[in-house]
């Protein structure tokens, strides 16, 4: 199955934020008004009701020139997704397109994924059901996987007017990104492709005008070591221990009974002396 990728060329973006509302519109997400952020930016970061946020950064480059940088920030859809790894309910899974999606029927709102995402793009949201009972679900960009299944591109990509967002076949997108970086090196010497290998590469890749840290992105994101220790070692061992202990006790119980039957006439407390 061909893998697909969302390509984000931040240098073509003019910060119009149509992607933000296209997402809300397609996914029927409610408004999530915030306090004044001190810039044009509307939300500090993505949230359960706001799956992509346009970042606005005033950056003075080495030459002393002002660059007004924008970044469409959303889920990266990692190839090795920490959220998928830590989910205790197997509610998070990879799709055939390479996207990472949350099954809300399975999600119990534990928030493990929220805390382990190296990009901090997953959030919990509390809902109230018909009976007035509260429940939580974790939420993030789905890359409009429902649209992909119908042969349509993600809503954000569909609405982007500058070609800053594209969606297409993985190798083509990667090639495009590499080429674009070469094109813009003149104006942006620090330009680079952001497709971090620490998480096995991502299905949202960026052409960044500056170093990742300028955008508040980790230079070297990876699945947290704790998550690896936990999911690859602690939990299997824990389960084993649970099993082994149980087996030991069952064994003890059985042998105990056999021996006491054998020693039927004897005092069980014989050894006390």
């Amino acid at each position: 199955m061909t893998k697909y990728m969302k390509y984000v060329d931040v240098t073509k973006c003019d910060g119009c934020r149509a992607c933000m509302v296209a997402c809300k519109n397609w996914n029927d997400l409610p408004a999530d008004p915030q306090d004044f952020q001190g810039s044009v930016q509307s939300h500090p970061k993505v949230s359960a009701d706001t799956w992509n946020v346009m970042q606005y950064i005033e950056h003075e480059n080495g030459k002393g020139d002002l660059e007004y940088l924008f970044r469409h920030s959303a889920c990266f859809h990692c190839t090795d997704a920490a959220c998928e790894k830590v989910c205790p309910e197997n509610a998070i899974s990879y799709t055939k397109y390479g996207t990472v999606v949350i099954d809300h029927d399975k999600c119990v709102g534990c928030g493990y994924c929220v805390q382990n995402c190296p990009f901090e793009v997953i959030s919990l949201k509390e809902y109230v059901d018909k009976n007035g009972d509260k429940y939580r679900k974790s939420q993030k960009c789905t890359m409009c996987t429902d649209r992909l299944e119908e042969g349509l591109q993600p809503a954000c990509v569909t609405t982007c007017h500058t070609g800053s967002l594209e969606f297409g076949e993985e190798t083509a997108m990667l090639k495009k990104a590499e080429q674009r970086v070469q094109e813009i090196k003149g104006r942006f010497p620090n330009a680079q492709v952001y497709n971090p290998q620490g998480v096995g590469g991502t299905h949202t890749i960026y052409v960044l005008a500056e170093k990742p840290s300028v955008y508040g992105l980790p230079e070297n994101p990876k699945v947290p070591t704790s998550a690896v220790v936990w999911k690859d070692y602690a939990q299997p061992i824990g389960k084993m221990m649970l099993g082994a202990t149980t087996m030991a006790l069952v064994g003890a119980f059985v042998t105990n009974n056999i021996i006491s039957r054998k020693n039927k006439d004897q005092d069980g407390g014989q050894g006390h002396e």
Partner: protein
Amino acid sequence: MVEINLNRRQFLKLSGATAVTLAVVELGFNEKKAYAQSKGFKIAKATVTPTICCFCGVGCGILVHTKDNTVVYTEGDPDNPINEGKLCSKGTTLRQLYTSEKRLTKPLYRAPGSDKWVEKDWNWMLDTIAKRTKETRDASFVETENGITVNKTEKIASLGGAALDNEETYLLSKLMRGLGVTYLEHQARI
């Protein structure tokens, strides 16, 4: 309803969502005709109507998806050469012009000195407005000025209209001038 030439647009309007697939950029990985009526796909079986954005002067095409007597989605009209399916934030949210809880749904009247609106029916409103218009016009009408026929009232003003359809602006311009209104302005100036 939509008098578009016998091209795929008409197909779009008449057969609803099925045709949108033709319009919206396809990925090619879905062999089966997209928009199969997958249950829950939000614009499946929706009616699609092309419109033009009501905001700025660019004139982008928008598709309005309606279902169950509400607007379920709005997106760029890929056929419109001006925007080729792309939109800004305002155009994208056109849907909320319909769904917003703040929409006025009934005529409201505020009596002199009152501190509240009162709901009234359309007929009463328009009858009363017509009456006020006539009263003011009749009381202020000037037929001649310095021997020149001027046929005007300078006591009634009409403002606005930059968001109206051409046909509406035409009728408004015609009606106001027909009444002799000279204070006729709209947003071109502000």
